[in-house]
């Protein structure tokens, strides 16, 4: 019957091997995703899932070095969840590309799209403010400008006096 030390060492060896397997899978996925991004579609969700998987593997290695084996098992599962999700996305988009349709659906809005939407909304708000501005009588604005200019001239005059 193997002693606890032997069991522990077997568990550690298995965990080292599983870490390597996961790291290799993530590497394969990153390579496949980079190729897809260069040729047909960049999925930000797959990218962030792979980044999360890599971060989790780094944590798993730290825990493994400290002999925290339960934490390592959990972190391996987490890394696998992220890697699997990226794998499914990359595989789905590869099929879509092979079918020749190249109509990709992003599960989360890409940053560029979010930025464009926000810019469009902001432009709309800006237009609405300028429309309201246009309703302010021009004579009033001219008077206000003149009053502002007078105030500025007064302020400048005082400053000149102080300086001289």
């Amino acid at each position, binding site marked *: 019957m193997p002693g606890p030390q032997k069991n522990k060492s077997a568990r550690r060896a298995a965990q*080292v091997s599983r870490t*390597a397997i996961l790291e290799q899978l993530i590497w394969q996925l990153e390579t496949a995703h980079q190729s897809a991004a260069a040729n047909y579609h960049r999925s930000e969700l797959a990218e962030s899932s792979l980044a999360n998987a890599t971060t989790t593997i780094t944590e798993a*290695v730290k825990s493994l*070095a400290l002999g925290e084996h339960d934490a390592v098992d959990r972190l391996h599962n987490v890394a696998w969840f*992220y890697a699997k999700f990226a*794998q499914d996305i990359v595989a*789905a988009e590869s099929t879509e590309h092979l079918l020749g349709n190249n109509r990709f659906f992003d599960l989360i809005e890409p940053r560029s799209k979010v930025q464009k939407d926000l810019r469009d909304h*902001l432009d709309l*708000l800006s237009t*609405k403010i300028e429309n309201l501005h246009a309703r302010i009588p021009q004579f009033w604005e001219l008077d206000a400008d003149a009053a502002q200019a007078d105030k500025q001239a007064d302020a400048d005059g005082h400053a000149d006096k102080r300086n001289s």
Partner: protein
Amino acid sequence: MEFFERIEHMGKKTPGEKASQVLGKLADVIADAPDVADLESGNYTELFVMRLEKAKRAYGKAKNALAHNNPELSIEHAERGLLHYELAAIHACTEATAFVANQTFAKTIMHGGLNLEETIEKLQDAICRIKMMIEYKNISPSKELRARLSTVVQNLQDAIEAYARNDENDPTLVSDTSIGGLIWAQYIHAALGGDALFVPKQEARTLRGLYQLALESGVASYNLVSRRIKDGRNKINSLENVLQSAIDAHFEGDTSALENFFRVGAIEANALIKAAAKAMSNDAPDQVMNEEEDAGRSTPSFKETVGEMMDLIHSHHQSPENAIASLSYLQKDASALKRAIRNEEWQKALNLVICCRAEISTLSGALHYFSSQEP
């Protein structure tokens, strides 16, 4: 000193001695590491190089810690360095293969009774099946369904994060979040494709009713006409509220409320199907409103636009506080500006225009976040 005590003492090393020993071992393996040029081409060379570099960095840190009389820290770094080297050695002798879909990994089941790992994977599959259906059938999901789907993706992320935290105070958080995501995935799939993602009868007995309600609600709102008539849109909103209430009742264990929601949901779904059929019949052709007409008819108000911007910023900005505060000020000042114009308080109105312009300029600067950040 007794003989056995002396033997035991000889076996025990001081932390400094142990640190020197582990550091020496790490130095040896690094010195004996093969050159990249000597590795067989086609192996995981990049991973080997990455791990070897980490081993070298760990060696440097371990040496530094020992030099600063911190043997415990030195041992920690050196042992981590040895682990990096162990991984490097595996990568060096493993043949690299190209990406193959559907690779699996033998997970460690850590919560046998709850099946957390299976539930998370099931949610991942559900999301990807919806994505494939949308792409394959060339479907353009409505804004509302896209938002629902984003929430399901967020459920998955939350479930994985909760699983990683292993929160003992709330062990059901992972399963509840995943199940909530799965029920909504069933609804979205039915609303987009008109059929079931999961056959309710094949699901766990306690969840069959929810899967069935999600399916009925989704199928009822599948008809495009449903979304083009006002009554239809109201009924869809109502059905979605009933579904969410049913999910909440399930998690709260309120079976009586749950049964009520099932009944109300079935009635509402039926009413929605009838409303769509009536609108499609010749009796009420003017009720069917083209979506394009609908979109053109209503330009979003200032408040609605601000609301949409707030939603986008909340969902996509890591620290949205400043942008949200600017938007709130902008909305407040714009309302005050309208009032000032109505009351012919021109000086006040001019000042408020200047404030609004300044807030728009601040917001414009905040949008650079989206172009400067990596996803």
